[in-house]
């Protein structure tokens, strides 16, 4: 199982084992990591699971789909490396992946 790090806006770090096949939103919720709300339950419909993919990983993880990009426009402070965590499905070789959370979800 890959080990993934979530970092809150405050700098607090959470290291978790990420079962492959689950989304970054589901894993965050399952581990009660604050900073990801996931209000729509992973339908890419609410933009409350906004994360920033660490620069070193952005190519590997890839960019948002067209629909996802539209939802990200609703998120506060979205950047080049923004993604919806519910649309990131962990792969077995993503050991060491780092995701950062914004100060608040909108």
């Amino acid at each position, binding site marked *: 199982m890959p080990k993934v790090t979530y970092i809150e806006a405050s700098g607090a770090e959470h290291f978790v084992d990420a079962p492959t096949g689950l989304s970054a939103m589901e894993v965050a919720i399952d581990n009660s990591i604050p900073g990801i*709300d996931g209000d*729509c*339950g992973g339908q890419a*419909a609410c*933009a409350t699971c906004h994360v920033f993919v660490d620069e070193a990983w952005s190519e590997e993880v890839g960019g948002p789909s067209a629909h996802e990009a539209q939802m990200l*426009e609703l998120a506060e402070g979205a950047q080049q490396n923004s993604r919806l965590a519910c649309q990131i499905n962990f792969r077995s070789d993503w050991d060491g992946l780092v995701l950062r959370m914004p100060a*608040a979800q*909108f």
Partner: protein
Amino acid sequence: MEDLALDALPAEGLDVSDPSIFAQNLQGPIFERLRREDPVHYCSKSPYGPYWSVTRYKDIIEVDSNHGAFSSAGATSLDEVRAKGVSADATPIGGFLSMDPPGHGAQRKIVTPALAPSNLVKFQDLIRERTRGVLGTLPIGEEFDWAKTVSVELTMLMLATLLGFPSEGRLRLKRWSDIIAGVPGDGVVESWEQRDQELKEMARTFLMLRDERRAQEPASDLLSIMAHSPEGQALSDMEFASNVSILIVGGNDTTRNSMSATVMSFHENPGEWAKLKANPAMIDSAVSEIIRCHTPIMSQGRRATQDYELGGKTIRKGDKVMMWYISGNRDETAIRDADRFIIDRQNPRHHLSFGFGIHRCLGNRLADMQLRILLEEILAQGWSRIEVTQPPQFAQSSSVRGVRSLPVRIHP
């Protein structure tokens, strides 16, 4: 309505557009039956014409997040006359809520910064101080109307602050909100003409305030943001007034009624009140649960732009589709024990009250904050409980779940 009488009626005859259903608070069993027997339901005849009802959680998300197939243009409520008015020069309401991309995004973005969490922090202390002030003057042990004394007063104060509207005039905001949401014969609106007169008065007032703001330095209130942003300046007078209308209703009906729902929910569930008092850390999830259970905005409409398969039915291009958030929030297949009020449920934020997709409620963080502060300050008063002494009166509307009066008594 007796369960027996309801079950005797064939599902195909059910018409949930009748606002008196909601005034009598009878919608629960009707929607329960639709979800079970005919979750994507066609009503061929209603006073507003034919329409579909989408009543299950998953189907509602599917419709709400597909703005390509389901357009918001002039179709967000059952009664479309309400948005457009009757005369050619009527003042339109709804602003970007009743628009599709790309126009929608451009106008929504004008007000987004004002309602972003980083801006709301600036209002937090003021909201707390006012909440404390209003709660501090309430009579103890005497009956009074919570809806009027607390919910309306606090909501108007906050909305006035957020908009940058003079707070002495705050009751005019409530009047306009009722007028915008109203239709002739509902007790507020007498005729379409009178309604439009008052909407024009609203538009004039806000255009004047906009011009005042333009002459001043930019500030963090909504009017100032709309007056100064380049996109805001590009709005015509009518577009500006129309967008103000959606902010007034969005910031008014929702919070006002959630504040009444807060008291109703805990009155009906004394065990949950005891839980919250013992563990105030549950306030955040309690707030989400109140918003889920009450569902202040019960429905939103769309118009199909293409034929679309949903739940085994074919919705035809041009058909009107109503999403019933109030029903989706009670969908047992998506939310466990959906009919119960449980402040520490597992995923309290998974509800439909804010809608989904590009039209998702812009004020959702403000709503969370206002209700959180209200609950914190109620707890701080140290009251043993707030008793509902007579049945609440609900609004005659299939759109806003309004609580018109809520007689209560505070127990010390």
